[in-house]
């Protein structure tokens, strides 16, 4: 067959320095993303991959895309990811045991094979002409040149894509909208449930937290008539945060009427 080496002219030395530093870093970050146990770590590593790609874009005379990559991807999309992660639970992490038999080895092998095939194919491919470079095209600047194309040759696709964006936004809203699966419980239902399920002790309502002049009382459990503090009288959130104070120090000394 023919000579398969790509006949592209050499790039500048600074660029090759840049590539040889950032390239491996990029691949390592991507690997880390896949291997990281926590989703948050994956997200941060992906963000770094994207920033490196943005630099590659700029290095390849795609200034506009590089900026967009940073703004849209790293800025907006990755934030969306993190936001959802928070919603779903930052701490949720994959269990590492594989449930589908043989999936993991097959996946790794086939991905290696895929990469190998792709790389050898690229290695063998030829364009039949030397690298042209974008200097000529970008003569008026990358953004005007791109916009020229976008609003002439690709204007139809551009319009369709805008419609797609609107549709996606609408779709996301519809999906995220919380559909009620059962009818909203009425007050009557709630009170019936209170009497049916809870103990009669709590049926009348939980006790209010204690009110003492010496401290903001919301974080102090109320004292029951027998003198014991009631945990039910304060918010569970405060307990979780550990912001609960002891009730006893604020207790007034008992009047010794009988003494």
């Amino acid at each position, binding site marked *: 067959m023919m000579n398969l080496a790509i006949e592209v002219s050499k790039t500048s030395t600074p660029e090759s320095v840049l590539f040889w530093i950032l390239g491996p870093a990029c691949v390592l970050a991507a690997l880390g993303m896949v291997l990281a146990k926590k989703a948050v770590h994956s997200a941060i590593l992906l963000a770094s991959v994207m920033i490196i790609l943005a630099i590659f874009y700029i290095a390849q005379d795609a200034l506009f895309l590089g900026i967009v990559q940073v703004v849209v991807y790293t800025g907006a999309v990755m934030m969306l990811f993190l936001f959802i992660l928070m919603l779903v639970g930052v701490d949720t992490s994959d269990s590492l045991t594989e*449930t*589908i038999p043989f999936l993991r080895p097959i*996946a790794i092998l*086939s991905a290696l094979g*895929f990469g190998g095939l792709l790389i050898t*194919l690229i290695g063998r491919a030829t364009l039949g002409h030397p690298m042209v470079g974008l200097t000529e095209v970008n003569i008026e600047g990358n953004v005007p040149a791109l916009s020229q194309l976008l609003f002439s040759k690709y204007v139809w696709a551009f319009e369709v894509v805008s419609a797609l964006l609107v549709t996606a936004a609408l779709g996301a809203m519809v999906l995220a909208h919380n559909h009620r699966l059962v009818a909203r419980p009425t007050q009557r239902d709630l009170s019936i449930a209170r009497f049916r399920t809870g103990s009669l002790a709590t049926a009348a309502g939980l006790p209010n937290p204690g009110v003492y002049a010496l401290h903001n009382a919301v974080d102090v459990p109320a004292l029951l008539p027998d003198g014991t503090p009631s945990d039910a009288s304060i918010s569970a959130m405060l307990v979780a945060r550990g912001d609960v104070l002891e009730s006893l120090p604020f207790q007034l000394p008992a009047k010794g009427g009988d003494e």
Partner: protein
Amino acid sequence: MTSNSLVYLIALPLFGSAVLLLAGRRSDRWGHILATVLSGSAFVVGLVQFAQMLGRSNDQRAVTQKLFSWISVGTFKVDASLMLDQLSICFVLLITGVGTLIHIYSIAYMSHDLDRRRFFAYLNLFIAAMLLLVLGDSYLNLYVGWEGVGLASYLLIGFWNQKPAYATAAKKAFVANRVGDLGLSLAIMISFATMGTVSFAGVKEQAGHASTGALTAIGIMLLIAATGKSAQFPLQAWLGDAMAGPTPVSALIHAATMVTAGVYLITRSNFIFDAAPTAQLLVAIIGAITLLFGAIIGTAKDDIKKALAASTMSQIGYMVLGAGLGPAGYAFAIMHLLTHGFFKAGMFLGAGSVMHGMDDEVNMRRYGGLRKFMPITFATFGLGYLAIIGVPPFAGFYSKDKIIEVAFNAGGIKGITLGGAALLGAAITAFYMTRVVILTFAGSKRWDDKAHPHESPALMWLPMVLLAVGSVTSGIIFTHGNSLQNWLAPVVATSPAHEGELLKPAVVSILALVLVLAGVGLAIMKYLRKPVPSEAPTDVSIFTRIARRDLLQDDFNEAVFMRPGQKLTEVLVATDELLVDGAVRGVAHITQSTGRTLGMTQTGFVRSYAMWILLGAIGLLATIWVVTL
């Protein structure tokens, strides 16, 4: 010669049948009269034709009438066309004459039956079909009548089909006849394939050019057809059961007319048999076997109708034997056919008359001494009896002796064997017919007091008397100056082979008479001198038992055809279910299970689908990789 009136012969009774069947119960009151009148008119038309025929010279006598072109495809051209010649007219007169008499008889005989109208409709249908059979000018036209009489016979045997045994008998007759029909249809096919024509005239003309092999094949097929319709060996088994039909039917269809159609067919096809000696010899052999076969069965039957049926089978055996003897015998076969038509029909009607007076009892052992109670019946039956055993000058003497004589003169071992068989048959005939007469009319009474035997009404005995007259005189008329032989000469080549005569006619007659007397004597010894038990004795020899079982004909058919056939049907039904349809269902099953197996790859886990996509992509890449190598 052409004629425009032949069609009326068929159309009249056909019209009657159609009217009676379509009008239904509305015609109950007058249906039988209409049918009888129409049958009688057909007889008159036949007589007129006969008179006209007599007025023409010998070679001008045949008349034809083309009705329309029936089937015409390529070179296969068959007209619906009728032909009346010297042979047909004999049959026409016999069918319409005896038929009309039996119509008259039936008016009285069936008067108590609610379905009498239907009976007459079938009778008329039979007359029409039988006339078509003898009038058709080609084998295919004949075939229509051939199956038509089969249908009428089926309907009439099964007339009381609410009795399962009768319905079975009807079906048996139809199926046995169909086997014969198969032979006829094959004969037609062969003759078309070899001679390019199926008309009698055409085949007669071409027969000389056809190969002997083809002609022999046609002849054998025609013989099979004849054995089916005429209850000859080996398709004889249905005739005994056919007695399930009302007695007039037995007289008309299963004695006088339909069962003789085979003899007609062979005689009509004389040009084929004369050119195919092997087939002709087979015809004679079949006739000889059957005449003995029927005679032996006749000796063992206690049912008067079945005894007469066996006798019919035997007598038709004589006719077939006669027809199988070639030009020398055709005329005598036809003569015996005609005389037999008279005396056997008369005897059947007599039997019907006896049954009529005996509350439908058919067992002769329960009769006895009836001559005092039924003098007319006894007289007519007796005349018929004398005719059938061949006592001169009654009709049977002339016709049967001629056949025996011709058989002896056929030459060589063939002649002696066939003649001997015929002679032996005559003796046995004398024995069993004497037995019938003695058991029925002579001896002491063996019926219980519930029966009140009485003479039948005039409507019934009048036909019997007329038939008895025929039994007495017809033989003399037919042989007087060889009248029948000469009459038939243009149709069948009648060349009495006098050279090398083995026995003189007188010798044959004397021999036959001696043997007949021996038979009669034996019967008298056995049944008149000794009291007859009213139950059939059971401690009898194996031969008697076999004879009572109709010489095992049904056992043979059941063992060889029916049961293997049923088994085959069962096996085929199972095969169809299991193998043929099973293959189809198997394919369906394989498809289903393949689907189920492949469905297991559909785990529902999105990651495994992603895996498949990845593998697909690899496949694609690998293909590109290999292709660009």
